[in-house]
């Protein structure tokens, strides 16, 4: 079905489970609770099935 896709953090309040992440030009709510934050806008995460599962940092 789906592959993991990279997304760029747009807004993610510290401690929140959901963050706004840009994926292929579309900003979506992504569950970031599986990773340790905080997440800074501009950083990248790998997303699968609505969850961020890998943290990449500021550069891919």
């Amino acid at each position, binding site marked *: *079905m*789906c*592959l*993991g896709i990279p997304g760029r953090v747009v807004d993610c309040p510290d401690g929140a489970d959901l963050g706004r992440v840009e*994926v*292929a*030009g*579309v900003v*979506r709510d992504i*569950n970031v*609770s*599986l990773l340790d934050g905080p997440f800074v806008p501009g950083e990248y995460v790998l997303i*699968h*099935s*609505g*969850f961020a*599962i890998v943290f990449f940092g500021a550069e891919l």
Partner: protein
Amino acid sequence: MNGSALFLRYAYAPNLLGYCGPADTSALLEFGAPGRAGTGFRALAKQFEGAWPQLRTIAAATGTADPLDGEVVEAYWIGNRLLDRAGDAEGGLPHHSFQVFCLYPWANLLLDERRTEHALQVLDQCRIRWGRVITVGADQVVVESRPLVWNGARLTLGVPGRETVNRGFDGVSLIGPLHPGDWVSMHWNWVCDRLTTAQLVALRHYSAHHLALVNQRLGGRAGMSGPRIQ
């Protein structure tokens, strides 16, 4: 059945959730509805970067020219005889359950206690599961099915439980009327299709095959034991 329309029934839910495929779900509906499928839908289907290569693999292995052939699409989402000619050396078949259980990261995340609950939820919702319709509403149905459970060492199917799933909204419905007692397939929070007996048997069979494979990889044992619904 038309392969494009069948693909749409199974791919619609994760696309609507934004997990895969093109950003514009309405385009899928426009091109994938029965009688409308054409070259436009093919371009959209290729954007399902996990499913499309599997369809191509099945088509190539079986000498089928079109990856959106109805039998090829059925083989990937539900399972059928085509899969038995398309496996790899390690036992994996180009079936959706192979991707969910064996290729995606979620099975390994079961072993991380902080992530177990989410991982199990994703595995259960992302696989194509089957269940029996209990009651039918306008846009939702109540279905009895066996959820995935994790005992710390292996994945199995648990005792039957009831869940409410969507079958349409705002006049959009991809399948015909349902009745109590029908067997249906589900993907995320949507009913995909009414299953024939042969399709139900195939979906159970190929799901069990890959459940056994992932349990083997996780160090457990095969996991289709437990009570049946019927």
